[in-house]
């Protein structure tokens, strides 16, 4: 379980990065089932081609779920107040995604201690795929 102390955190601190296995079709199929996202573009190459895509591709929410792992591996989920993501690039098959993040703000307000972090998912070529931000309220 993630444990974190507000007083020892500094703006600019990195979150421990997370590198995922290369994206394959099995994970897309399992994620479609686990997440309830049955849009065929992610699991059926025929549907993807009909839509003008060369092949199936990663769910944005799979990328966001992995950024979620990065967050909850760093601080407890019970402290998470908001989590936003922008899907700026398609995650293609065989992409190796690394999730990174850093603390961008610390602030105390009404007796609550807030920490804002910036996160991103990037492939092995350094192309940004998902950009996000999260707010934690720490005791």
């Amino acid at each position, binding site marked *: *379980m*993630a444990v974190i102390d507000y007083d020892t955190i500094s703006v600019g601190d990195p979150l421990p990065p997370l590198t*995922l*296995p290369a994206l394959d079709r099995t*994970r897309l199929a*399992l*994620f479609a*089932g*686990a*997440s*309830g*996202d*049955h*849009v*065929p*573009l992610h699991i059926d190459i025929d*549907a993807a081609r*009909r*839509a003008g895509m060369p092949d199936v591709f990663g*769910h*944005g*929410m*799979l990328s*966001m*779920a*992995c950024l*979620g*792992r990065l*967050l*909850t*591996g760093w601080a*407890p*989920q*019970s402290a*998470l*107040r*908001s*989590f*936003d*993501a*922008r*899907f700026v690039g*398609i995650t293609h098959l065989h992409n190796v995604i690394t999730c990174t993040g850093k603390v961008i703000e610390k602030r105390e307000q009404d007796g609550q201690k807030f920490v804002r972090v910036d996160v991103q998912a990037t492939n092995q070529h350094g192309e940004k795929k998902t950009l996000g931000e999260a707010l934690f309220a720490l005791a």
Partner: protein
Amino acid sequence: MEIEKGRLRFFARTIGETDPIYTDEAAAKAAGYRSLPAPPTFIFAAELEAGTVLDALRAMGVNLGRILHGEQQFTYLAPVCAGDTITVASQISDIYDKKNGALEFIVKDSTVTNQHGMPVATMRSVIVVRN
């Protein structure tokens, strides 16, 4: 949607989650949760599972082969754990286009409540339609 332990474990395994609080109820309870917590993005599944989002998009005349997920936002108001039943109420709050209609953006706002009628989260999705 009823939040089931088996489903949460399936989701956790699929995203490579290794923290035992997401798969082992004893570890979750030791960490202060009533049962396995739903990971931060899991609640997005409830509405998808019901099929209502895709049905609504089809009813709006959107070709589902042309959609992309542009943005997703969550705010968390209370924990969601296995054993809870969540209800998602959504509305389309905005539709706009860019590049003279080549891209259309559909903004959907949702509130998520649990079986006690307590709000547990809000969600906003931006869906991009490539015309």
